[in-house]
């Protein structure tokens, strides 16, 4: 999937992946896609909750060997 910016927060725990996602999105224009890579198991639910509450779109989610990859499109 195409993306405009990547955020690698592997190794970081709650709430840092969410806070850093918020910061990264703030610098991006509407419609751009942010790729987020995490290892925090809690981020699987948290990213969905973040997207839902901030009206950004979680385009896709996948897991690979304990690494979670999200594609989030800015509102």
């Amino acid at each position, binding site marked *: 999937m195409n993306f405009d910016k990547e955020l690698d927060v592997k190794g970081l725990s709650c709430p840092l992946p969410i806070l850093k*996602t918020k910061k990264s999105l703030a610098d991006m224009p509407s419609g751009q896609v942010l790729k987020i890579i995490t290892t925090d198991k809690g981020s699987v639910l948290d990213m969905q909750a973040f997207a839902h509450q901030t009206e950004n779109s979680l385009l896709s989610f996948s897991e690979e060997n304990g690494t979670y990859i999200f594609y989030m499109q800015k509102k």
Partner: protein
Amino acid sequence: MKKMALIASKGTLDMAYPPFILASTAAALGYQVQIFFTFYGLQLLRRDLSGVKISPLANPAMPMPVSMPVLLQAMPGMETMATAMMKDKLKKKGVASLEELRALCLEAEVKLIACQMTVDLFDFERSDFIDNIEYGGAASFLEFAGSADINLFI
């Protein structure tokens, strides 16, 4: 805009995390947030947070690497050791430090209010605390909390 009001009343390392984690996250989700720091919670507003510690004493739920009799937990230096171990663990697991979370709260415009009554009670000086905070009492907390969507006492 949604609002969240928190009261932070505890000044130990473990209990310092919930208010700062919730406040910074709520701010990221678009909430307007206020934290009212009272009694031991005032410790979390000090310039120097190195005095914020955790004690295994009277805390039987704290996971310890080796089980330790209560009398040993009361020995001098145990609190410092437990605090160092906990901070090391937090760092290894990628959990932000209190200083970092507090800075993120301020950056996200979370309003931090020190309870003036307890500041006076414990003879604190305003110079003990970080600069960008306000001082108020129960009425100022309730004014915001009265219209908040979430109210928590921590």
